[in-house]
């Protein structure tokens, strides 16, 4: 089978507007979770979000394009531009354009940002609306815009599996390149859940922390929602070497599973099936895995479940694996989480630095793994796994391998 490598990354999150800023904050262990600045949630029970600060869409898009673009599209498209530029990839021939895939993930697309539309429709009884509400909100908008901007004709689609969306997207893209459906793929995800209505629905689920996000910590009290987008460019090793492209790391395995259990209460069996699936798909020995970027939402339910799942998949080696949840810094970005955390994992392998779990205070006996606490760890690991486990019990894990 063909080998697949990552040659470009792009990211926008609460940790900055590009990959350079993200890396700096990530390795410094700085949490971007702060009191909401762009949305008034003063009457909600929580105040912190992982908000993108300083992004001006007018710097990135022509005025005539703006009515067609939701904020989730801004992040998806701009992160894709950064990843494509970073990779140095260009598409000259029809064959190259046909043999490139675009697969994006998002939980809600632009649906979460329809507050103003519904207020005008139902409360203000307004009758006139712009004709762009549908193309703005549709979940596949980002994939379509990336295709149009770059003239890419190959398989282009969007996956929506809640918090696993972009891990499923990256995994499907990896398999598509590995088996030869395409030679290159642009994969990632974006999400913008920070509208008042959407934040209220999360409050109702009682899973959002009134404090901050402290994954695997004994006093953890829930997740913090974040917004952002991330994209990676992957291609065959042959293609990357031919182009002389800089290789970040290799993508080696992808595992997926369903809990077949409960809509919101996760199962360690299901999560373990996805993790083991990725390891087996990669033909890795469990001992080769030295770092896991955990799903690590910081909820009471997830973190012990994930600890148990890792133990089921790795046995005694579980205690040797360094674990962190970078959601403690960029927040839970739902459908973008897999992509943002893939970038964190890729940077960890590339730079031999494992990002920490920020806001960590006290170990929890129920989460007795080697959690990297508050400060990054200088360590070059051979392979790493990034986990995403969604509401609905849909799990996706991706395995990456150091390239040196």
């Amino acid at each position, binding site marked *: 089978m063909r080998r697949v490598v990552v040659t470009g990354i792009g990211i926008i999150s609460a940790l900055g507007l590009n990959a350079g800023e993200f890396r700096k904050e990530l390795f410094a262990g700085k949490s971007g979770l702060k009191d909401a600045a762009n949305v008034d949630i003063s009457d909600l029970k929580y105040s912190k979000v992982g908000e993108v600060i300083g992004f001006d869409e007018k710097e990135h898009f*022509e*005025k*005539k394009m703006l*009515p*067609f673009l939701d904020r989730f599209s801004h992040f998806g498209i701009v992160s894709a531009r950064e990843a494509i530029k970073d990779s140095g990839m260009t598409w000259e021939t029809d064959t190259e354009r046909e043999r490139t895939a675009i697969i994006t993930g998002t939980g809600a697309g632009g649906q979460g940002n329809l507050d103003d539309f519904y207020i005008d429709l139902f409360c203000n009884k307004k*009758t*006139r*609306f*712009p*004709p*762009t509400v549908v*193309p703005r909100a549709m979940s596949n908008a980002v994939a379509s815009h990336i295709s149009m901007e770059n003239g890419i004709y190959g398989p282009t689609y969007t996956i929506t599996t809640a918090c696993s969306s972009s891990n499923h997207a990256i995994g499907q893209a990896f398999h598509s390149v590995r088996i030869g459906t395409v030679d290159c793929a642009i994969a990632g995800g974006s999400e913008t859940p920070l509208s008042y209505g959407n934040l209220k629905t999360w409050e109702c689920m009682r899973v959002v922390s009134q404090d901050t996000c402290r994954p695997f910590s004994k006093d953890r009290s829930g997740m913090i929602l974040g917004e952002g987008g991330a994209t990676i460019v992957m291609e065959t090793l042959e293609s990357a070497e031919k182009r002389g492209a800089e290789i970040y790391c290799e993508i080696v395995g992808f595992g997926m599973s369903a809990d077949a259990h409960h809509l919101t209460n996760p199962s360690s069996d299901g999560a373990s099936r996805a993790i083991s699936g990725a390891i087996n798909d990669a033909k890795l020995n469990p001992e080769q895995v030295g770092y896991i970027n955990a799903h690590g939402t910081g909820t009471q339910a997830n973190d012990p479940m994930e600890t148990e799942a890792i133990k089921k998949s790795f046995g005694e080696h579980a205690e040797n694996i360094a674990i962190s949840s970078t959601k403690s810094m960029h927040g839970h970005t739902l459908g973008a989480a897999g992509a943002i955390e893939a970038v964190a994992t890729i940077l960890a392998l590339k730079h031999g630095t494992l990002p920490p779990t920020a806001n960590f205070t006290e170990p929890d006996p129920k989460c007795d793994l080697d959690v990297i606490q508050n400060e990054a760890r200088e360590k070059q690991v051979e392979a790493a796994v990034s986990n995403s486990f969604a509401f609905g019990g849909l799990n996706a894990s991706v395995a990456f391998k150091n390239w040196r």
Partner: protein
Amino acid sequence: MSKNTADRVIAIVADYKEKPEDEITSETTLDELEMDSLDAMNLIFELEEEFDIEVPDDKVTEMKTIGEMVEGIEKLIELKEKGETVELADTGSNASEG
């Protein structure tokens, strides 16, 4: 054609297409402005907001030039002033392209 309405339409079109107002006349066609169907829908929406009218779906496709747009808008304003809003509310149901 009322100069006032024409000027307001041209100002909106110029702003929307980011073109100087003096490059747009009543003879300018939407094709010349490189407007696709969704562009045109967006522009109609902005004109509806500006003049507080509702352009029926079947009238949208009839507006091929800026002059026709101004004439249509003036007629709609006139009908509205006469209180004849029933016809304007009848917007048909075949606007979707997919």
